[in-house]
C-alpha cells in the first residue's frame, strides 16, 4: 500500500513537472534565471510587460530615474549642498550601492535601507528635511541610485552584525499572518508559477525595485508592495520603513542574490 502511494505521488510529481520545464526550456532567460531555479519576476511577466521594461523610452520608470538625476545636482537644506557635491558623479560613486542594500548601520545598531540612507544624508549632512516615504523625490532618488547598479548581481551581506536582522526577516517571511493565515512562502515558494485567479505568482524577488507597476500606474517602493501583500491576506501591516520591513528587505535581497538589479523594472 505504501509503495502504491509513493508510486502515485511520483506520477503526480512527474505529471506536474513537464509543464514548468517546457515553459522554461522555451525561453533562454539569461541572467534573469539562475541554475538553482531562482528566477526574477521578469520571467513571470507577460512578454509585452518585459518589452516595456527593456525599452528605455517605453519604460515609465525612467521618468523617476531622470527626476533623480536632476535632484542629485540640486542643492537643498541649510548647508546648501547637493548630493553631487560630496558624491560626484552617481554612475561612478553609486555603482554597486543598490546591489548591497540594506546594510547594517553601526551608528543605528540596526539595518538601514536605501531610502533611509538618502534621508540620513539629507538630515545629517545637508540640513534638509527628510523626504516622506513614497513621495516623488524619495522614489526618484532611490530609483536613480539603485539604477546605477542595474545589471549587477544582488549581493547583500547577511553575516556578522547583520545576521540577527536577517534571521528576523526570514522569520517574517515564514510566519503565517492575517485572517487568511498565509505566509509569504505559501505563494512565493510553494506556488510560484501557479495562478492566483488571473495573476501568475512569481517568486517574489525584490531585484527590480523601485518598480513601475502597471496596476499602480506609478513607480513604488518594495515596502509599498509588501504592505499590499499583507493587506491582501487581511493582516495588520507595518509602516513603510519600519524595522520589520527593512529586516524582511534584507531577507528578500538574499533570496534574490545573484539576480541582476533591474531598477526600474516594470511589472503588472
Amino acid at each position: 500500500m505504501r509503495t502504491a502511494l509513493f508510486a502515485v505521488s511520483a506520477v503526480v510529481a512527474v505529471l506536474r513537472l513537464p509543464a514548468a520545464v517546457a515553459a522554461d526550456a522555451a525561453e533562454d532567460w539569461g541572467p534573469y534565471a539562475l541554475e538553482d531555479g531562482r528566477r526574477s519576476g521578469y520571467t513571470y511577466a507577460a512578454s509585452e510587460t518585459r518589452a516595456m521594461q527593456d525599452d528605455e523610452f517605453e519604460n515609465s520608470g525612467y521618468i523617476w530615474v531622470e527626476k533623480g538625476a536632476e535632484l542629485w545636482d540640486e542643492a537643498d537644506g541649510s548647508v546648501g549642498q547637493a548630493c553631487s557635491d560630496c558624491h560626484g558623479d552617481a554612475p561612478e560613486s553609486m555603482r554597486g550601492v543598490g546591489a548591497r542594500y540594506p546594510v547594517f548601520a553601526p551608528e543605528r545598531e540596526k539595518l538601514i535601507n536605501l531610502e533611509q540612507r538618502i534621508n540620513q544624508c539629507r538630515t545629517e549632512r545637508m540640513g534638509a528635511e527628510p523626504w516622506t516615504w513614497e513621495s516623488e523625490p524619495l522614489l526618484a532618488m532611490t530609483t536613480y541610485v539603485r539604477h546605477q547598479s542595474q545589471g549587477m548581481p544582488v549581493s547583500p551581506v547577511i553575516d556578522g552584525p547583520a545576521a540577527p536582522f536577517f534571521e528576523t526577516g526570514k522569520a517574517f517571511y515564514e510566519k503565517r499572518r492575517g485572517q487568511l493565515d498565509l505566509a509569504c512562502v505559501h505563494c512565493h515558494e510553494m506556488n510560484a508559477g501557479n495562478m492566483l485567479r488571473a495573476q501568475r505568482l512569481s517568486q517574489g524577488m525584490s531585484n527590480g525595485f523601485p518598480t513601475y507597476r502597471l496596476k499602480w500606474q506609478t513607480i513604488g517602493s518594495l515596502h509599498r508592495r509588501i504592505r499590499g501583500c499583507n493587506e491582501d491576506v487581511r493582516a495588520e501591516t507595518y509602516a513603510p520603513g519600519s524595522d520589520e520591513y527593512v529586516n524582511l528587505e534584507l531577507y528578500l535581497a538574499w533570496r534574490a542574490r545573484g539576480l541582476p538589479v533591474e531598477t526600474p523594472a516594470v511589472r503588472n
Partner: protein
Amino acid sequence: MASLRRVTMGLVCGLLAAAATAAPVAYVVEDYRIAAPLTATPGDAVRGEEIATTRALGNCLTCHVLPGDYEFPGTTGPTLVGVARRLDAGQLRLRLVDPKQINPYTMMPAYFRTTGLYRVAPEYVGKPILSAQQVEDVLAYLLTLR
C-alpha cells in the same frame, strides 16, 4: 475514540446585531469530518455558488477551478470539478471550517475559525471569513459538483 473526536467552539458573527446574537457554534470533528450542519437552516446551493465566486466572500475561484464559465480560475489548489464524488458532506464541511485539522501545512485558510491567527487586521479581528450559514451555503453548492 477520544483522539479522533474533538469538540471545537467557533463563533457565529452575524452581520447585523452581532453583539446580541453572537453565540458560540459547537461542532464535533470525528473521523476527519464534521458530520452535523453548523446551522438549522439548510444550505442554499445558489447562494453558495455566489459566495464561492465572489472575491470579498469565499473567493474559492482565486485558488480553485470551478465548473462553468468562470474565467481565470486559480491553480494553487486542486480542482473542485467533481469534488462531491471524492469527498462527502462531513469531509467537505471540515475542509471549509478548518482545513488545517487535516493538513497543518495547507495554504487554504480556515473559513470558520477566529483563533490561533497572527496579526489579523483590526477590521477582521474576531470575525471568521464566512458565517456559519455561508459555510453551509458553500457546502450545498460543492455537493452539486458531481
